[in-house]
């Protein structure tokens, strides 16, 4: 069984990663880190760069958790990618970071977290940035 974590290079993403590592050690499972972008814009701050990924790997190695990292850029929303991965592979828990959005903001921007919470086939752990 695998714990899937949606990672973005930000305090929110780091918090989600730490929570996923903690859960993996408790349950004795491995961590699948997913970083994804639609690739719509020339630059996407949510796409992890080389230094970010190196840091993620160091953290995972230090914690001694078996892990895998995937980066997907194929024109699809993060929610779609996470739900699909959770459905097609043997995922026991999805870990995501959440933050506050006003109702109007949610209407305009949509909510990735809400999509995942409602559509994921397994339990979802929602973490806030510290």
């Amino acid at each position, binding site marked *: 069984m695998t714990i899937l974590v949606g990672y973005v290079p930000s305090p929110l993403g780091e918090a989600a990663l730490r929570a996923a590592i903690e859960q993996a050690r408790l349950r004795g499972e491995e961590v699948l880190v997913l970083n994804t972008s*639609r*690739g*719509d*814009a*020339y*630059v*996407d701050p949510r*796409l992890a*760069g080389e230094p970010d990924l190196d840091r993620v790997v160091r953290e995972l190695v230090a914690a001694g958790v078996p892990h895998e990292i995937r980066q997907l850029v194929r024109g699809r929303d993060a929610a779609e990618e996470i739900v699909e991965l959770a459905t097609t592979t043997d995922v026991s828990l999805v870990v995501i970071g959440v933050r506050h959005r006003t109702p109007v903001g949610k209407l305009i921007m949509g909510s990735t977290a809400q999509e995942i919470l409602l559509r994921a086939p397994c339990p979802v752990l929602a973490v806030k940035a510290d």
Partner: protein
Amino acid sequence: MDSLSALLDGFGHVLTPMNLLIALLGVTIGTAVGVLPGIGPAMTVALLLPVTHGMEPAQALILFAGIFYGGMYGGSTTSILLNTPGESSSVVTAIEGNKMAKAGRAAQALATAAIGSFVAGTIATLLLVLVAPPVVSFAVSLGAPDYFAVMLLAFVAVTAVLGASRIRGFASLLLGLVIGVIGIDQTGQQRLTLGLPQLADGIDVVVVAVGIFAVGEALWIAARLRRRAGEVIPVGQPWMGRQDWRRSWKPWLRGTALGFPFGAVPAGGAEIPTFLSYVTEKKLSRHPEEFGRGAIEGVAGPEAANNASAAGTLVPMLALGLPTNATAAVMLAGFQQYGIQPGPLLFTRESALVWTLIASLFVGNLMLLVLNLPLAPAWARLLRIPRPYLYAGIVFFASMGAYAVNAQPFDLFLLLTLGLLGFGMRRFGLPILPLVVGVILGPRAELQGRRALQLSGGELHGLVGGWVSWLVYAVIVVVLAWPLLARFVVRPLRERSVTA
């Protein structure tokens, strides 16, 4: 110094709050479109032509000039920070500039690009002030046959020199000339109007420019939209140390010297001088081993060449009414929109307008330095705009502009037809510039040709006038033979230095 006092008058016109605001708007838009890889200055000016219809001609030209110069600055920012040249003229900048940024010297690369652009832009604009009036006074003495020959040269130059395939260039030129023929001739005869009353006045150059540049480009990109995201290299305030200044100032001056003449020659463009500047700096550098790993000279020289060639482009445009690149072609369409006939008489008939435009170049250049030095990181944030919004926005503004020209939905269908033509040309590798030059210069060439033949009573020898036309015809022959020279001399040279 007659032109100096005229220039001072021009500054007087520019330095009003309203015109300064328009110049600021122009350089801001220009930098933004320069930064965004999908949209260039030619397309932007084309999109703005219809909405500036109600403005004063001088103000519209100040705006366009700002966009023209701004685009050159913005392109370098993306080249350096993203390794994505915003414009074809900043391809060379990306070679060393991005390497510098990766080595943690993004601030110095941006600074030498911005300051170099300013130095080159200012010197080259001064050269424009010095060179244009003599060219004009010479051009005024020319007769109809000479003009006809010069325009033929412009056709041949944009068709045969640029682009990989001459036959495709000529196909594009002929398409443009045919579009230019549409409408009621001066004798009252309908030509190619297909009986449509909306075509009686011909196809508005604005609709052609918007259709080919904006709609055609948007359709073409939509068909093969790339999905990829990069990362911007974080950068603080651009600055340069003493050592950087010492290594930059000579490349700036050499780049200017290379860029200006190439810009002024028909079909010279910015690609060749930026490339030549790169090769020169590599050869002259005391640190040749740094080239390929982020040498500051390799950013300073090409960036200066790039901006100097932009100013050089304005010499034939203002003095002769000849466009040598896409942006200049669209700006000439802007002149025609205001009923201003481009050509040598422009300097005498519209003296105030021309000098205001030139003065605005100096002002805009200074504004660009101020905008770009501290704000480079902010400009890079523009790259977060999702591509669908960018291209949806282009289609949106193109439709708005094309409708606004004559307030008839017919123009929107015409725009779509031209957009599909532009799409097909991009698909089959037909260059765009010859078509646009054909549309703009075609009718004028026909007029001059007919005028020349009128003097000779219809005999063909009327097309050959004084020594100027002989000289120009000789140059045309050389230009037509140029691809052979290019194949055996220039291309092997280029390949060698790119691979090195």
